[in-house]
């Protein structure tokens, strides 16, 4: 049998990332993931979604795919925006931001990496796909 797959197509309006995490919650329960893992997935998913909404400059929709593998949840967040060069993104440090002019933002990608087991970015001028995974046991 094919792996079960849930697909969301979200418009770019306020708080649509909540649709994504509500779905993640049902999926996590279905896969019997721990509450901690479920919360980590939700937080990472929020960050990937708001990046797609905020930075991609996509005019249309953002797509989110949940692929339920036996022992792993795979999530893809896909936008059709302007893309970006991950190697140019600096690792944020709060020390450098406090008391300076530096923008207080910039933790989204960092959070995704810390909270998920694996993360991959494919980004071109046609858009960005973030693929992240979480193992049931680890």
């Amino acid at each position, binding site marked *: 049998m094919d792996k079960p797959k849930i697909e969301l197509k979200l418009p770019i309006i306020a*708080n649509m*990332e*909540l649709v994504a*995490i509500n779905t993640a919650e049902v999926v996590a329960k279905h896969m019997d993931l721990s509450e*901690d893992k479920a*919360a*980590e997935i*939700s*937080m990472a998913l*929020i*960050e990937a979604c*708001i990046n797609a909404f905020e930075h991609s400059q996509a005019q249309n929709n953002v797509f989110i795919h949940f692929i339920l593998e036996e022992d792993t949840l795979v999530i893809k967040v896909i936008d059709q925006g302007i893309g970006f060069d991950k190697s140019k993104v600096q690792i*944020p*440090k*709060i*020390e450098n*931001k*406090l*008391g300076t002019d530096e923008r*207080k*933002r910039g*933790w*989204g990608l*960092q*959070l995704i990496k*810390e*909270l998920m087991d694996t993360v991959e970015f494919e980004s071109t001028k046609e858009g960005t796909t973030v693929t992240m995974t979480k193992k049931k046991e680890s």
Partner: protein
Amino acid sequence: MSQFNVSIQEENDLVILTTEGYLNNEGGEMISGICYENISNGKTRFLLDMAQTKVVNSIGVSILIEIIEKLQEVDGKLGYYNLAPIVDKTFKIMGLTKYSSVYATKEEALADF
């Protein structure tokens, strides 16, 4: 529609904000608006009861960093209690815990504030 609410309570010279719902951009700005107003009225110590905030995003949390920065200028202090584990973890990853204090309970927070 609002996904976020905050209520305010003063104990002695301390301002306690009780949050409810998704701490996003909008939520962060509700908190900072209240803090900045209180700072301009001379208050310098703020505590957030976040028991009812199970979800945050990095934009909302970055606004807390702005509050920390503003409080450094007035020798003030920011603390939190009743954090959901994922909120606690997010604060650690973003480094807030180096410049503000996380407490398990209100009692613990009050004892230190």
